[in-house]
C-alpha cells in the first residue's frame, strides 16, 4: 500500500519538537489545525509525519498555556475551522525555544560530526 511506503522514509517527531514547529508555523499568521499539519509536512519536505491526533492535543496544550489563542472562523474555501494565532507570550517562547534548539543541534553536531569524521 502507498501509505506503507511513505511511512518508511518519514520520521516520527521527537518529543517536544512539535510545540516548536507549531509555534514557528503560526509565526507566519493565524492558521487552522489542518493547515498547520500540512505546512509542517510540506516545509519538512514530507519528512516529518505529523500524527493529527497528537497535533490537536498539542494545540490544546499550547492554548492552555496561553501561548496561542484560538477562535472559530471560516477557511479560504469557506469551511468552518478553528484558527490559532500566536500570543505575545507565545512569541517570547518561540524565540527562547528556537535558541534552545539551536544550542542543542550545535552540541549534537559537535559530538556526532567529529566522530563520523574519525571513523
Amino acid at each position, binding site marked *: 500500500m502507498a501509505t506503507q511506503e511513505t511511512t518508511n522514509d518519514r520520521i516520527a517527531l521527537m518529543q517536544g519538537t512539535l510545540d516548536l514547529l507549531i509555534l514557528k508555523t503560526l509565526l507566519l499568521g493565524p492558521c487552522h*489545525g*489542518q493547515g498547520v499539519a500540512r505546512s509542517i509536512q510540506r516545509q519538512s519536505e514530507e519528512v516529518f509525519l505529523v500524527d493529527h*491526533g*497528537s497535533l*490537536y*492535543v498539542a494545540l*490544546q496544550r499550547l492554548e492552555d498555556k496561553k501561548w496561542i489563542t484560538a477562535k472559530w472562523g471560516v477557511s479560504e*474555501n469557506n*469551511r468552518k475551522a*478553528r484558527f490559532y494565532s500566536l500570543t505575545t507570550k507565545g512569541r517570547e517562547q518561540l524565540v527562547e525555544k528556537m535558541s534552545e534548539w539551536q544550542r542543542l543541534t550545535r552540541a549534537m553536531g559537535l559530538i556526532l560530526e567529529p566522530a563520523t569524521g574519525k571513523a
Partner: protein
Amino acid sequence: MFKRKRSAQDFSEEIQAHLELEAEELRREGLSEVGARRKARHEFGNIPAAQEHFYLKSRWAPLDRFLRDIKFASRSLLHSPGFAVTAILTLALGIGANTAVFSVMNAVVLRALPVADPDRLVYLRTTDPPAGAAYIDSNETFSYAVYNALRRQGRGLSPVMAYVPLGGKVAVRYGGASPEEAEGDMVSGTFFSGLGVNLIRGRGFSEQDETNHAPIGVISFNYWTRRFARNPGVLGATLYVNGVAITIVGVAAEGFEGLEGANSTDFWIPLQNRPELNAWGNPAVDGKTFAASDSTWWCLRLIARLAPGATRAQAVAQLQTVFQGAAFTGLGTPKAGEKPPILSVVDAKNFSGYDERYGNPLRILMAMVGLVLLIAMTNVVMLLMARNAARQREFSVRMALGAGRGELLRQLLAESLILVSIGGVLAWGFAVMATRLLAGWAQIESSLAPDRTVLLFTLVVLVFAALLFSLAPMRVALAGGAELALRTSAAASNADAGKSRTSKIIVASQMALCVVLLVAGALLIRTLRNLENTPLGMKVDGLVVFGVQPNIAAVPEGKAFYRNLMDKLRALPGVESVSVMDTRIGSGWSNNADMTVDGKLPEETNGMARTVRSNVVGPAFFRTLDVPILAGRDFNDSDTATSPHVGIINEQFARRFFPDQNPLGHLIGTDDGRYQMMVVGIVKDHKYRSIDEDPIPMAWFMYAQIPITGGMDVEMRVHGDPLAILPSARNVVQQMNPNLPLINPMTQRAQYDMTISSQLLFARLAGFFGFLAVVLVATGLYGSLSYRVNMRTAEIGVRMAVGARRGQVVWMILRDSLLLTTVGVVIGIPLAMFVGRALESSLYGVKPLDTVSYLLAVIGVAIVALVASAVPAARAASVDPMTALRTD
C-alpha cells in the same frame, strides 16, 4: 484546575472540521470522494484516543475518579436511607458529645493562659500562713508585706505580680447611667507588661501607677464590646468604681479575661490604698486596707515570671529566706516551735483553680463520652457489616464482572467517607450548641468556643472512623468471592458462622460498656438527688438576698445606714422580715478563726481543730432564715453598741466547747482578745457555706456591736415571689445613695444551688451520656438482631414447617440476646466497680458500690435487650413458613 472553557463537544467539532478540510484538499489532489474521506481519517490516526486525551487532560483524573466514586456511593446509600440516617445520627451524637466535652476540657484544663511565654509563668503557693494571720486561701494568698518583699528582690522571680478582686461584683457607674455591677481586679503595675498581655487601645500600667495608686483602669475587650459597643471614645472616660473616679486608659487584647478562672474580669486598676477599694470588698479594719505595711491579711494572689536563666528550684531557694522573714510582718516573732510557712511555685500555664475544680469531673466525662463514641462506632461497624453481608451478592456480581478488590475498597471508602463527613458536620453543629449549654450550666464565663485544637481532635476522630468503617466491613464484603454470584440460595450463602461470632462479641461488649455507663450515671444521679434534697436547716423558700457596698468612713455612720436601710425595707408591702449579714450565706465563703472560750483558747485535744466560723449579722437574723433557736434568743434591736456584747452559737459549737454545760451566759471572744461576747442563744445546725458541707462550730455576732463600715448582704423574707420585691428594694437603696446598685441579687435558694452547680452539671451530663449509651446500644442491638432474624428467615420457615410453634421461635431469638446480655453484664459489673471507685470523690451520700445503682443498671440493660429483641422476635414468629421457604 478544571475550569476548562472548552467543551469536549467543541473539540470533536474541530476534529470534524479538520477531516473535511483534509478530505477536500485530498480531493483537489485527485482522490475520489470516498478515497479522500478514508485517507483523511486514516492520516488522522486514533480519533477516540485524541478525544480521550483531551477529556483526561481537562481534568485532574484522581479527582474525577473520586467524584465518580462519591456519586456511586451516595446512590447506593440512598437505596437504604434507614441505614444511612441511623449511621449518620449515631456518628453525629457520638462524635458531637466527644467534641463538646473535649472543647470544654481544652478550654478549662489544656488551653494555656493567653499570655506571652506561659511556660515561664508560675503561681506562688505557700504552706499555711503564720498563726494570727487572716487569709483568703490557706495556700494561694499572701500578705502585702510578702508581695512587697518578693518583688523588691528582683532575682529568681521577676517580676512578681499581685492581683486581687475588688470583691465578687462591685458597683460601677458610667456617664449618666444608673449604677451597675462589674468584676474588677486590683493588680501590680507590672501586671500587663509582666504577663505579656497586649493593649489594643491605650496603655497598661507602670510601676509608677502602682506606687501612686493612680486612679486609672484598663477594661477587658469583652467588657469594651459588651458595655461600650467598642466605642474608641471610652479612653479618657470616667468609671465610678464604688464611687471612686477611675479614668479608663486602655483596652486589653481580645481573649484576655484576667486570671480569676471561671469569672471573667471586666476591668483592672492598680493596687489601691483607699478603704472604698479594699481587697475582696472587705471593710478596712481600723482604717487600714490590705496594703497597709503592717497588714496581716493574706489576701493577694501572686503570679510571677521566672527570672531569665533561673529554674523553679533556684528561684524558690533564692527567695525562701526573704519570704519567711516577710511572712511575720505585723505578727511579732514566731512563737516557739512554730514552723515558718514554706514558699513554692506551680505551673501557671492554665487558670488557677480550674483544674482542681473541673479537671477530674471533666476527665471522667471525657472517658464516658469516649465509651459512648466506642459504642457508636461499633454500632456503625455492625450496621455496615450487616449491610455488606446482605450485599455480598452485589459484590460478587461486580467481581465476576471484573471489578478488582481495589475498586470495591474504593467504593466502601467512598461510602464511609460520605457517612463520616455528614456525621462530622452534624456533630460539629451539635458540639457548638452543647458547648454553649455547658458553659451556661457550669457558669464558666471565659470562652469555651471550639478552637483549632478541638477541630484537629474532631478531624482525627473522623478520619479514624472513616478508615475503620471502610476496612472493618471489607472482610465480610469480599468473603463471598466471585463464585458466590453463581450460588442462589439465601440459606446456603449466609450460613457462615464466623461473622455472626464477631457480631456476638461486639454486642456483648457493647452491653458491658452500657452497664458501666449506666452505673456511673446512676451513681451521679443519686448524688444529684441527695444534694437537691439535702435539708438546709432553714426555710429557704421566700428568701431573697442582695449586697450593698456603701461608702462609709465612720463606724456610727455605718450602723445608722444599715439601721435605716432595714427599717425602710421592713416597711415595704409584702415583706415579712429583714436582716443583714457580713458574709452572704451559701456563697461558699466563710470567716474562719480561732476563738477564746471564757477567756482562753480551747485545747486542741485529740486532734480536734478549734477553728470556728463566724459571721456578723443583724437583728432577727435567725427569725428571717427560720432557723430554730434551741435555747436563749435571737439578736434584736435592743442589742446596741452600748449594751453588753452578745453572741449566738450553733449546736456544734456548744457540743465542742461546752460539753455537759449550759453555754448560755458564758463568754466567747476573738483570738486577739479585743471582743468578748456573752452567749445568749443556741441555734440548730444548718448549712452555711454550701449544700455539701458538714457542719462545724459557728458563732454569730451582732453588727451593731462590731465596728463594720463596708458592704453587707441584705436577707429579706417576703410573701409571694421573692424576686418581685427587688425593684422596690432597689428604689429604697437608691433613695439612700444613688451610687449603689443591688449586688448579685438572687433568691437564697439560687445562691445555695450555685454551690452545687458543678456537681449538678456533672451529674446531669453523666446521666445524659448514660442515657445516650442506652439508646445507642438499643439501636445497635435492634439492628444486629433484626439482621440476624432476616438471615434466618429460611431456617425459621423450615422449623415452622416441621412443627415448631411460634413460642419456640420467639424464645430462640430472645434466648440469643438474653445470653449476650448476661455475658455483657458479667463483664460490665467489675468494670463498673472500677469506674465507681474513680468517681468516689464526686459522689455525695452514695457509696461507689451502691447496690441500687448496680441493680438499676442491670435492669436497664435487660430492658434494652428485651425491647430491642422483641420486634425482631415478633417478626420471626409471624413468618409464614411457605413464604419463607420460597424466599429465594
